[in-house]
């Protein structure tokens, strides 16, 4: 039996055992601390409300956005754009990344192109997507797709390369064909890492979404954010930023949760 307080002390011992309960409380505490400092600073009147609106003003702005500006449909459309681009990236990047990891010809063909596009700053491509696809949904989803696909494919290829050679050779000596090997062994072995790669890429999608919605859009969280800025409504700006943060945090935690459930054998 641990002496009382040992669990808490483990949090500051180098490489101590995990303490999920205490860690959770600490995280919640940090979150609340930021909130409280914000509240104190904003309410004390030390900072101009235009620079730092109070939490109460932000809550009110949220309320206005949801009741008067149909914010829920803005959120809906932003989420839809992110997921459309993310799924389009994943559906192509997963098979192509796996093939890249296994066939040198495919790596040689695609890698220079991928590396080239990967280093282009995505905002620089906005004019191009506008010229090609106009200001409709196509240009925004394409921009997000470009921003994520070329990163994701390399992550996937790396995940596939990290599968132990013994697994592949075991599959072969048990009679698996190349396709069976990729489907039944490689994909299955890399799956946990792949879900992590997808989770990280989903986060990047949100970054590019805001770029796309600010530059060329008349709907979405990014659009509302930028409109609010134009009219100097900083509570609405804060509400927009926090909305993105909350959606990001929630989807990240959801995927982590699924990761723990699906890949119990790792935990």
């Amino acid at each position, binding site marked *: 039996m641990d002496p009382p307080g040992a669990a808490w002390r483990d949090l500051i011992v180098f490489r101590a055992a995990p303490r999920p309960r205490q860690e959770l409380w600490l995280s919640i505490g940090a979150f609340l601390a930021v909130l409280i400092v914000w509240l104190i600073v904003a309410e004390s009147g030390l900072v101009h409300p235009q620079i730092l609106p109070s939490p109460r003003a932000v809550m009110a702005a949220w309320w206005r956005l949801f009741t008067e500006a149909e914010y829920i449909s803005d959120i809906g459309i932003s989420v839809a754009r992110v997921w459309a681009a993310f799924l389009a990236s994943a559906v192509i990047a997963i098979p192509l990344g796996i093939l890249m990891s296994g066939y040198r010809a495919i790596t040689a063909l695609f890698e220079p192109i991928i590396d080239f596009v990967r280093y282009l700053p995505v905002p620089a491509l906005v004019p191009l997507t506008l010229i090609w696809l106009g200001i409709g949904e196509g240009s925004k989803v394409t921009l997000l797709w470009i921003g994520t696909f070329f990163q994701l494919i390399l992550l996937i290829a790396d995940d596939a390369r990290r599968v132990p050679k013994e*697994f592949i*050779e*075991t599959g072969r*000596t048990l*009679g698996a064909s190349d396709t*069976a090997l990729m489907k039944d062994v490689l994909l299955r072995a890399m799956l946990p890492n792949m879900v992590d790669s997808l989770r990280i890429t989903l986060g990047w999608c949100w970054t590019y979404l805001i770029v796309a919605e600010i530059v060329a859009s008349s709907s979405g969280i990014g659009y509302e954010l930028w409109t609010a800025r134009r009219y100097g409504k900083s509570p609405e700006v804060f509400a927009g930023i926090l909305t993105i943060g909350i959606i990001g945090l929630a989807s990240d935690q959801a995927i982590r949760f699924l990761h723990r459930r699906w890949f119990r*054998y790792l935990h």
Partner: protein
Amino acid sequence: MANSSFIRIAQVAKEFTAPDGSIIPVVEPLSIDVQEGEFVVFVGPSGCGKTTVMRMVGGLETTSAGDIYLNGKRVEGPNRDKGMVFQSYSSFPWLTVLGNIRFGLKYRDDISADEKERIARHYLDLVGLTPFADYTINRISGGMRQRVAIARTLAANPLVLLMDEPFGALDALSRERLQIQLMDLRRAERKTVIFVTHDVDEAVLLADRIIVFSARPARVLADIAVSATLPEKRSLDILDIPEFRKIRRDVLALIRNEETRMEAAE
């Protein structure tokens, strides 16, 4: 084919290219014949090329010269005829114990699904893992993992079982248990086995024949017919009988001599 050996390694050589482009000869042209049902153990100084020879038999490595024949057919790549058990744990962590053994039968289209299930359970039982059928791999010990790997490979019904230091990472007690179990399995199955080890006791205990390799590049230094002196049915008690000790001493002397020679050359 003129030669009727089950496995024929005919004038096989292997060289690797080092990163700096120089050629490293790892296996000198060597020939080994293995009869069907024979248990052949490869021993030799570490790094001499035992694994490389075995991997060439398994089709996992190409030969630089010469050919290998299994049951009259030239070895051209890995397939179900050549089952492999690796030293490192190669059981799939996303499957259960039974799931892993079933995987050994996944690509067999010569038998029905019912038959596959029966065979999987048969091998599960044979390696004594029936109580652990539904355990995931990360919950069982190293020794059990190797039993899973052996059962999985046997379930695929290969012509030859290739085992590369399969017990090398186990503690002494688990190793003894697995050695005994392997002897039993082997008597029941009459499989042809090629087994690599650096443990000379293990070699003499298990082998019908021991092949001692020279230091790199590998040549055959000695080919010792263990079954000519030791009984076929063996237990761990055999470690004390004089015939066993003599073979063990001879093999050790050969390997030590090679290692001295190797050190002198450096």
